[in-house]
């Protein structure tokens, strides 16, 4: 195959040849190529099939606006779909595939869709998949659902690998005075000016090279600029896209670290997601050349004029031999000249009739002409042209390439992210950035400046603006006026040839045609936001960078309005696609969220614990012996606790030190029950309500000294309770002399429970007399020592209902404590028990936890009315009896037994009356367990009216999720030892 590469052009390194594969065939390119330039050099015109119609598509651009050359890079787990070939740097061994085609892009069976176009017009999905009358109900819809999967498969882009991503990604952060986005003449001038004024500057460039559109100039060499920037201490970030601007001058960057390397070092991330916090932002993001809508304007060989200039001068590729350039502005003439110098036969069609342009006459200029139809299917054969006033065939030009320039759109996207609406400029036929109060300044062609000197001047003015806004200087400055061409642009968005039904594309990537826009208008979708969603114009991954303005102009014409009256859609981040991997960074797998472990975590695992997640915490779940299942194990553990003794890690409970002369008053206000008379050396169970009277949390507080308490909270609410106490002390009760300190990490806690627990502890404490029933009665607290001179706190608190102690030591002593307790517990045939057994024990006792206290339950609902003091006011006391909370059909805490004691049930079961099994029923089961003591399954939950109302009634437990139903009876929640005699033993 003949190459399109030409000698003496381009900045590629011809000494370094790179091999790559395209659609399973081998090709060669050079270092410095993009995949697009290498494909063009190898004379490959068709690189993909279009989204809906499967039309052959080529390369339209040389940059991020590309809407045709979307390809898949890599294979297996490194398959990356929808990559723009125009920005993918070539590397040795690169493997790329065309998309949306079967068997391949040159011969695609689904090309038939092209002829079924009228079925695939705008709104196709809405009309089809909502069901078509009279089939929109019943089985008719199923038919459409059946076809849907085939239709959806036919329309689309590349597909993901579906495999775990083998690459790593990183999140990184930086700070600076000024961040400059874009390294064109404006951005570079701004950065240099700022660095010279001693600002700390980051310069961001999405390309691999700095220079911006100057890279398309044949005599441009960026090495001197690069040296100058580096010598000034400017941090240059290439291959880095500023994809979004956020509040307070925060900029999101995506750095592509290894996407251009064939065998990347596995120790460096593929991409880096940067959060930059700047004091000022200068955006010199350039402008994007638009195409023109006319019939068959998507045939491979159509390209923007500026793109062909890039391919010629940067990559040494002459993209056509007989080239027709269609334009409405001055920007194309330098390119036309260079293309003809490089050996192409060039004709320029300029829609304008009255203008002056200096040329050396090496190419023909047809003033007042426009293209209206391309002939050809897989490549361009010829172009039908017409006089621009009325579209009628005047001539057909044989050609192999059509280059388009419908004007330039400043890249105002980043400013749009900040909610700043651009304003339409009639003279330049484009949207220009508006001013903003935020510290953001637009420079260069992204503010509509078309010549280099103006761009440089705007860069310097931009930095002066920044210095003024930062209060560093007070210097007058002015920006050059938008524009800069000798002759004015003449608006030209569409060449409408009425005598043909050929497609005329507005948005190449989503196959949106001019007819689709007209159809949307006919069907009433006349707001731009509706137009966008109905036709999907600008919703592909190029976000309409080339086609949006054309769509707006068509809608404006249909509505007899001007473009500014029609408005424009809002650009939102990201400017170009950001991979999910980069968004997640290192927060994947085990690092998806932080992991909390107790200080005896390893000890627990070494002693056979299976762990379970509780919030962020890893807690022992059960300790299976040999072949025990979860259920075998927890039943054995719970039975052992009731029979002898068990040890359970309870470190995950929240622990708060409360100190200061008003501590007692403070606790008395936040707990619903009285704390004013709690003696030193005693603990009390307490319930906290929210302001609105609902239960927030429960726990214990131990009075260690006159003005010092040790509070425990539930595992799940620990952080919330801590913030709540701080809020009260810092915002509401600022006169109270109280300090609260989280000591959750400082103390390791264990529960020693069961009839033999005191005997075990006797062997573990220095002085067993401190824990006798007299010296440490139920709810007693003592600070003493474990053997080995280990200071500890012991409270006689029971969650299991048995004689039990909670023992706390400093976290450093956790393992020593466990060794000591376990060595002695073994002597009494004790066990280690986990969360599952803990749950069984507490359900038997009817103790509530987070499963019951779910933020909807009042203290009365939980059956804890006794805990609500009537002698004092406290948080929530005014509200706990309000309105609906005092209704007598509230759901009240009860216990449940299956009527047939051999049956089981699940948490989540809905409780219903026997003849009324529907809806939300009359209650719900929140916790279930097998009760080793009772020998059958039991549950806790809520039922309207509580035990008194349903004591002797047979109810039904409906479990529609598991397709299960059983008979239930309601019992007291205190299913074992209701008087609590055991824990006083």
């Amino acid at each position: 195959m003949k190459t399109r590469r030409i000698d003496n052009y381009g900045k590629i390194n011809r000494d370094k040849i790179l091999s790559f594969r395209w659609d399973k065939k081998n090709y060669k390119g050079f270092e410095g190529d993009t995949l697009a330039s290498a494909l063009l050099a190898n004379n490959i015109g068709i690189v993909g099939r279009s989204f809906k119609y499967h039309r052959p598509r080529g390369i339209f651009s040389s940059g991020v606006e590309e809407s045709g050359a979307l390809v898949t890079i890599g294979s297996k787990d490194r398959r990356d779909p929808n990559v723009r070939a125009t920005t993918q740097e070539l590397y040795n061994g690169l493997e790329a595939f065309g998309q949306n085609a079967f068997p391949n892009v040159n011969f695609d069976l689904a090309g038939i869709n092209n002829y079924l176009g009228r079925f695939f017009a705008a709104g196709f999905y809405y009309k089809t998949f909502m069901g078509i009358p009279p089939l929109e109900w019943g089985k008719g819809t199923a038919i459409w659902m059946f076809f849907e999967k085939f239709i959806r498969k036919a329309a689309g882009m590349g597909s993901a690998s579906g495999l775990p991503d083998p690459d790593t990604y990183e999140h990184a952060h930086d700070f600076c005075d000024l961040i400059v986005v874009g390294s064109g003449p404006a951005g570079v001038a701004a950065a240099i000016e700022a660095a010279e004024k001693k600002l700390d500057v980051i310069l961001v460039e999405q390309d691999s090279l700095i220079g911006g559109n100057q890279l398309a100039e044949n005599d441009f060499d960026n090495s001197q600029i690069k040296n100058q920037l580096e010598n000034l201490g400017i941090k240059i970030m290439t291959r880095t896209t500023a994809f979004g601007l956020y509040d307070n001058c925060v900029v999101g960057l995506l750095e592509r670290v290894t996407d251009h390397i064939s065998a990347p070092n596995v120790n460096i991330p593929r991409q880096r997601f940067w959060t930059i916090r700047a004091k000022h932002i200068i955006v010199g993001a350039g402008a994007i050349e638009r195409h023109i809508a006319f019939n068959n304007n998507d045939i491979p060989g159509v390209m923007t004029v500026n793109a062909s200039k890039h391919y010629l001068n940067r990559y040494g590729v002459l993209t056509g031999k007989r080239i027709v350039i269609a334009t409405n502005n001055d920007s194309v003439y330098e390119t036309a000249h260079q293309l003809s110098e490089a050996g192409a036969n060039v004709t320029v069609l300029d829609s304008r009739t009255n203008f002056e342009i200096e040329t050396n006459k090496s190419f023909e200029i047809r003033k007042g002409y426009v293209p209206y139809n391309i002939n050809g299917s897989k490549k361009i054969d010829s172009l039908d042209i017409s006089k621009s006033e009325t579209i009628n065939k005047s001539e057909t030009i044989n050609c192999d390439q059509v280059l388009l320039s419908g004007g330039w759109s400043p890249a105002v996207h980043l400013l749009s992210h900040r909610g700043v609406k651009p304003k339409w400029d009639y003279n330049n036929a484009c949207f220009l950035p508006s001013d903003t109060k935020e510290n953001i300044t637009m420079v260069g062609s992204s503010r509509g400046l078309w010549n280099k000197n103006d761009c440089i001047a705007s860069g310097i003015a931009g930095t002066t603006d920044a210095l003024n806004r930062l209060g560093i200087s007070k210097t007058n400055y002015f920006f050059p006026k938008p524009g800069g061409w000798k002759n004015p642009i003449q608006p030209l968005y569409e060449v409408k040839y009425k005598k043909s039904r050929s497609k005329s594309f507005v948005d190449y990537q989503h196959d949106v045609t001019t007819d689709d826009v007209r159809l949307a208008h006919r069907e009433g979708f006349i707001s731009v936001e509706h137009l966008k969603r109905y036709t999907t114009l600008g919703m592909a991954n190029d976000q309409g960078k080339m086609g949006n303005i054309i769509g707006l102009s068509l809608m404006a014409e249909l509505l007899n309005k001007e473009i500014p009256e029609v408005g424009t859609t809002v650009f939102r981040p990201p400017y170009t696609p950001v991979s999910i991997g980069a968004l997640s960074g290192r927060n994947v797998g085990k690092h998806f969220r932080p992991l909390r472990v107790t200080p005896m975590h390893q000890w627990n695992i070494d002693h056979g614990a299976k762990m379970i997640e509780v919030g962020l915490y890893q807690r022992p779940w059960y300790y299976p012996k040999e072949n025990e299942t979860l259920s075998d194990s927890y039943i054995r553990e719970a039975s052992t606790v009731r029979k002898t003794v068990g040890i359970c890690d309870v470190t995950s409970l929240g622990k708060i030190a409360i100190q200061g002369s008003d501590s007692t008053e403070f606790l008395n206000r936040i707990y619903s029950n009285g704390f004013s008379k709690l003696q030193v050396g005693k603990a009390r169970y307490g319930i906290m309500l929210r302001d609105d009277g609902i239960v927030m949390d429960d726990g214990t507080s131990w009075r260690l000294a006159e003005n010092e308490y040790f509070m425990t909270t539930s595992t799940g609410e620990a952080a919330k309770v801590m913030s709540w106490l701080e809020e009260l002390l810092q915002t509401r009760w600022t006169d109270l002399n109280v300090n609260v300190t989280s000591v959750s990490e400082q103390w390791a806690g264990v529960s020693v429970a069961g009839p033999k627990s005191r005997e075990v502890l006797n062997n573990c404490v220095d002085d067993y007399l401190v824990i006798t029933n007299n010296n440490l009665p139920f709810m007693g607290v003592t600070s003493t020592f474990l053997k080995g001179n280990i200071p500890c706190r012991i409270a006689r608190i029971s969650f299991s209902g048995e004689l039990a102690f909670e023992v706390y030591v400093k976290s450093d002593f956790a393992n020593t404590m466990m060794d000591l307790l376990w060595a002695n517990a073994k002597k009494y045939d004790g066990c280690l028990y986990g969360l599952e057994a803990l749950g069984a024990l507490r359900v038997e006792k009817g103790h509530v936890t987070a499963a019951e206290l779910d933020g909807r339950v009042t203290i009365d609902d939980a059956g804890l009315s006794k805990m609500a003091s009537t002698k004092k006011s406290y948080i929530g006391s005014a509200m706990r009896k309000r309105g609906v909370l005092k209704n007598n059909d509230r759901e009240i805490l009860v216990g449940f037994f299956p009527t047939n004691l051999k049956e089981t049930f699940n948490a989540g079961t809905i409780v219903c009356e026997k003849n009324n099994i529907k809806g939300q029923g009359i209650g719900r089961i929140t916790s279930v367990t097998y009760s080793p003591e009772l020998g059958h399954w039991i549950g806790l939950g809520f039922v309207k009216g509580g035990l008194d109302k349903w004591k002797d009634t047979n109810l039904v437990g409906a479990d529609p999720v598991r397709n299960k139903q059983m008979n239930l009876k309601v019992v007291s929640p205190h299913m074992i030892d209701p008087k609590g005699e055991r824990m006083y033993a």
Partner: protein
Amino acid sequence: MIRINCPYCGERDHSEFSYGGDATINYPSLDASEKEWTEAIFFRKNIKGFQFETWHHSNGCRMWLVVERSTVTHEIKSVKPCHPDLQKVVENNK
């Protein structure tokens, strides 16, 4: 991203903070009526523009702050400690 200038820690990302709520509420005494509490808890103005709100520097110094923030632009005019005594200390140290 909102950046909040904590009087103790300096300017930090909003992800270090937890949002509290309306900072202008005068909570009634604990023995006040249900009606007074209902008004304090449930009735809020939906302000367009600057409002005073509490933020907790929960992943920082743990202080509760009053932030004067625009609900339209996220612009922050002032940040002070909630506690009046600490407000004075911060004022005096300026």
